[in-house]
């Protein structure tokens, strides 16, 4: 038994996840996928497109219950979860601020969001509707929504894809800033190795379908020391351990 008040990490043990198409063809997306994310750690699931990363997140978010196996979300403190989906998924008929507040539990509804909006550069856009935002700004609003809920665990599904590299880079730094202000157990899905090396404490490397874990790459260096020199060293040692992963 866990001692009272102890925090359990995120534990995933999915035996199998199979999709059956209408024509009877079945695709096994996940097989024997198990990994752990420690308390307060920022982890990345790194794998090629179509290997089952989104599928894994959907299972962990409770959106897909048709799988065999089990998982355990961090307990203790707030047991809320938050997600930044592959698309921003803001309600088009609510303003940016309403979108953020609606995601909050009743007890936090009236909370002061000035700091968060300021940090994410959204201070002037709280009363805009999502259709008035660029994709980059909409992604920031989706980040604001996730962080505002003060979750016990945060899931991010390729939150920077289809942005130009400059915008994506700026958003990665913003993500680090808000995350560092309140380090939350986080699991981010990406197929971008450089992004994973820049953001995470550990990288869980996935094999192509049916997906399982190839190995885990820990990045112990504090993030502020990961300059371009260090990054190319990290890349080299990553490639040394996982020669087949690009």
């Amino acid at each position: 038994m866990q001692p009272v008040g102890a925090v359990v990490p995120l534990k995933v043990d999915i035996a199998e996840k199979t999709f059956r198409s209408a024509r009877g063809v079945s695709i096994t997306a996940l097989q024997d996928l198990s990994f752990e994310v420690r308390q307060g750690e920022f982890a990345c699931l790194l794998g090629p497109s179509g290997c089952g990363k989104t599928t894994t997140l959907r299972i962990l978010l409770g959106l897909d219950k048709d799988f065999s196996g089990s998982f355990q979300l961090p307990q203790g403190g707030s047991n809320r979860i938050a997600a930044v989906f592959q698309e921003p998924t803001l309600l088009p008929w609510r303003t940016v601020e309403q979108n953020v507040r609606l995601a909050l539990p009743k007890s936090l509804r009236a909370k002061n969001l000035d700091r968060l909006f300021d940090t994410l550069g959204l201070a002037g856009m709280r009363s805009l509707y999502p259709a008035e935002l660029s994709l980059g700004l909409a992604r920031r609003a989706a980040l604001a929504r996730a962080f505002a809920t003060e979750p016990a665990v945060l899931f991010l599904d390729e939150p920077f894809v289809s942005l130009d590299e400059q915008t994506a880079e700026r958003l990665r730094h913003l993500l680090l800033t808000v995350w560092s202000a309140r380090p939350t157990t986080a699991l981010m899905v990406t197929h971008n190795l450089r992004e994973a090396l820049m953001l995470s404490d550990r990288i869980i490397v996935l094999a192509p379908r049916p997906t399982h874990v190839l190995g885990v790459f820990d990045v112990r260096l504090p993030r502020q020391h990961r300059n371009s020199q260090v990054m190319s060293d990290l890349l080299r040692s990553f490639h040394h351990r996982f020669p087949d992963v690009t």
Partner: protein
Amino acid sequence: MTALGTDGARDAPPTMSGRRNLATALMPALTVAVSLLGLCLLWNLAASVWPSRAFPGPGQVWQVLLREAASGDLFYHLGVTLGRVAAAYIVAMIIGSVIGVLLGSHRRVDRFFNPWVILFLNIPALVVIVLGYIWFGLNEVAAIGAVAVNKIPNVVVTMREGARALDPSYAEMATVYRFGRLERIRHILLPQLQPYLAAASRSGIALIWKIVLVVELLGRSNGVGFQIHLYFQLFDVAAILAYTLAFVAVMLVIELLLVQPVERHATRWRRRPA
């Protein structure tokens, strides 16, 4: 002189364009007024060419309208009919929406009940009204129920389309962030259904008020339909036209002052472009 000239030139454009803006704003209303006036003139001309008790001119109809308004009858019967329209509309929209959304989101249920929907869509309004009065008596509940039953299948079909078009990603977002039941309905479901609700409302009101008149004619002792029936027996065409025009006017005013503003408010987020 030069200074005055330039001043005048600088002042002129705003007033000019101001006047032009006012003119463009008034133009549609003006067109409608002229068009209706033209219709009245034509009507008047026709009535004087073929003078008959069965074909009164606009002047006569206006006289009757004033008489009925002065006695208070006009407003009483308009009010009664309007109340029935409102009640039948609300009942039909609520029941039709609930059934439509259920069918639209459960494919098997939909497959089973679809024949029922088609059957009900094709039952003539008159049959429902007559059966309603026979089964439930000549009372208000039967009258409003019969009108609602006539409208419900249309609402079901429209709202079923709406439910099929729901974007599941919003519902998933609501699940992750643990929206309450009412919040889901208010912030996720209704805004997505809004265009379908608006479509069902529009066609609904138009259909309902016409059926309400029939219901009143067949089994009520007040309302515009009852009055039309009464004046039909007295062969008083002027009174029939007076009641009809008054009611059409009321429905247009409701459309203009209620339906359109509500719709504009509900779609405010759509109109500002990115």
